[in-house]
């Protein structure tokens, strides 16, 4: 696995991940958001795989398989089933309209590139140069959660955040010790499950999963 092939493949995977983040920010149909999350999960798995093969160690490869199973298959299926149950297909009117949120996403990415330079130039190889992109995905995830009204979109934003952090983990350290990776993945799965159960209760209590209704508990 030559260096140039590695950096091209990494660039491609990181590029797709970043594009998926923008798709989530852009689309208002929930189904396409879920599909974008699935694609991004796959991209993270590809990054893990390439790094594993490049460093000839088994751990990242195993992690890649786990990530693919969890973030490209299981969780998107869960989200799709969730959307079908709640029959809410479209994100109605988010807090900030679509063009403005895309603009904000762009500015955010520039900002992250400007400030997160020092992480990039610590590691010399091509992987760590892509870290600012991963941090950008984290920030975009947080932006989606802050703007969108629907419960599903907020969970999608959370998943963007998690994928971003996973990317940072793989790019900087080609995978944390397996025990931590496993713990993290299990926690992520449980969080999504919990949110799914809570969304079910929210539908029964509030009739819809519009987060703006959640303003009764205030000071």
């Amino acid at each position, binding site marked *: 696995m030559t260096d140039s092939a590695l950096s091209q493949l990494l660039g491609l995977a990181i590029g797709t991940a970043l594009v998926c983040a923008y798709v989530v920010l852009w689309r208002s149909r929930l189904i396409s958001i879920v599909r974008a999350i699935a694609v991004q999960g796959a991209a993270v798995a590809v990054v893990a795989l390439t790094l594993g093969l490049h460093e000839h160690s088994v751990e990242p490869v195993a992690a890649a398989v786990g990530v693919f199973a969890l973030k490209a298959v299981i969780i998107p299926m869960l989200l799709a089933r969730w959307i079908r149950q709640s029959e809410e297909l479209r994100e109605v009117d988010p*807090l900030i309209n679509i063009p403005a949120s895309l603009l904000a996403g762009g500015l955010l990415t520039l*900002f*992250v590139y400007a*400030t*997160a330079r*020092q992480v990039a130039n610590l590691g010399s190889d091509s992987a760590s140069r892509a870290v600012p992109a991963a941090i950008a995905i984290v*920030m975009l995830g*947080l*932006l989606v*959660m*802050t*703007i969108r009204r629907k419960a599903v979109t*907020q969970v999608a934003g959370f998943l963007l955040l998690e994928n971003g952090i996973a990317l940072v983990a793989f790019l900087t350290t080609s995978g944390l010790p397996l025990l931590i990776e496993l713990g993290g993945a299990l926690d992520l799965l449980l969080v999504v499950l919990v949110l799914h159960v809570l969304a079910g209760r929210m539908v029964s209590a509030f009739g819809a999963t519009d*987060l*703006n209704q*959640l*303003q*009764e*508990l*205030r*000071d």
Partner: protein
Amino acid sequence: MSAGTWGLAFAAAAGGIGTIAALVTVGPTRRWLVGILSGLSAAAGGATAILVLVGHGPVTVHLPQILPLAGVELNLDALGAVFVLAVAIVALPASIYGIGYTAHGLNRRSVQAMYPLFIVSLLLVPAAASVSTLLLLWEAMALTSLVLVAAEHRDRSEVREAAWWYGSMSHLSMIAILMALVVFAGHAPGETFEALRMSGRHLSSSTRSFVFVLSLVGFGTKAGVVPLHVWLPRAHPEAPSHVSALMSGAMVNLGIYGVLRVTWDLLGGGPIWWGITVLFVGVTSALFGILHALVARDLKRLLAYSTSENMGLILVAVGAAGIYSSSGNPMLAGVAITAALLHIVNHAAFKGLLFLGAGSVVAATGTRDLDRMGGLLARMPVTGAAFAVGSLAIMALPPFNGFVSEWLLLKSLVQGLPASSVAISVTMPIAVGAVALTGGLAAAAFAKAFGTGFLARPRSPQVEAAAEVGGTMQTGMVSLAVACLGLGLAPFALLDVLRRAGAALPSLWGGEPVRSVGVTLHTGGLTGSLSPLFIGGGLILLVVLIPVVLRLLGVAGRRRVAENWGSGRSLQTARMEYTATSFAEPLQRVFDDVLRPEFDLAVTHTAESRYYVEAVRYRVGIVDGFETHVYRPLIRVAKRWGEMSRWVQNGSIHRYLAYLFVALLIVLLVSQ
């Protein structure tokens, strides 16, 4: 363990056992046990104080394992001993008085358990010798007195309001003292007063002024000086009377103790503007306090405002001492400090007596409103006589003790200084004028309190049915009355002791300020002498002699009871008497623009014609100026701040996530 340490230990132990007894026993045994044990604790504290004052040397106790991360340091020196003596003078009679007084529905476990602890904390605060110990005992005193103030919270809503005001202002006092002493300790090798004393003079002048101002605010709040006095006329009247006697007679002194200890002992004195500030605060407190006492209709509220006034007078003496010491006359400062310390002990005696008297009146009649009292001297002879002695003492009239300390206070202000600084030659006359006016108005206020309260005829049925109070309450009052007369006739015994207390403040003492030759007191500086024994004795002798001379001149002994002169009208009713409001009305009109009373006059005319009046309703309310113009707006601003800050937690999850988002951006920016 020296005798002094045994004394303090016994005082604390007696208080502790008293609390346990209060929790365990029930009914009369509880009242008696708490009363006796608290009295014992006070007596032990007083004995220790006297031991230290007669030259036994300071009592030091060092308990490192108590109070984690700090340890307890106690060191009772001569200065602290004077204040402990003042506490003991009030606490012993008040405890005996409490035995009878708490029989009227106050015999609850929480109230009786806190009373001994309150006395122990009062006794120990002057002995504190490190920052943490002082704060611990200060808060313990505040907590125990808060529970006692809120004792009757079920019966009256004002008590709940008073409890909140008192709790908040005591904590303001504690926080201000904490800020001052913590900053001071920051610049000193340790937190004990010894360490502070060593580094006191080497601090930068800005730090010294910071510590001075904040400790003045902190201790001034507890002493009830004017801008910070608002809690005093609310909390003292609502507390049970034997507790308000303790609070007014003993607790407020500790505010003065704090100012003396921090400013002129630990900081070792300071520039002249310190003395002038303290003097100015004293003058305003004295005048403001006595004016509101003059127009108060509620007896205990009148006494509370007069406490503010007396603390003002003491601060005038302390301020004068500060001015003299910073302008290089330590001997004159000595005279002023002796006056302040003597007035503290005297004030403890007569203010305690007055509050106990008021307590008996409230217990017997159930009302505190002077306008509804009257004729109590006939119905409650012992309480009446005791209250008369207290009133004459607080009016600074011979032969009682107020006269001696007021004389010494005036002598300390009247100094023929060559005009070393314009400040002195202007402030001193103003101070004398203010003290004199306060003295005059005090005479008016307490003539009103005793005159309209106890003389003439009862103006309401419940006062008509009043009967004398029980034995223990009478002993409490009579013992304090005897103390007032004793201190009045023979203060020289106390003055020798006060010399050692004054010497404990080197920055405020020099030479031989007050000598007592035989029974006559001679003051340094502008010489003048007074022998209270001769004047008092002479008065009493003459008062006894005059009827004898009349008898010799053939005057008949028996008296015929005759009707008062009603300019021809025969029917004289109690409604024609002068009440407290009417008695003080001329003076209230003279000081109208200071008091700014609220009038409202409602005249209802008869239906037929406008020229005939059916009923006239006249209501005059005196509201505390500072409360309406300083504290109410502050509370409104705080409430608005509270309302506006609810925007932070408005329930929208998007806003909450936005906080995280912004925080992350800031972190990215900051970590360049």
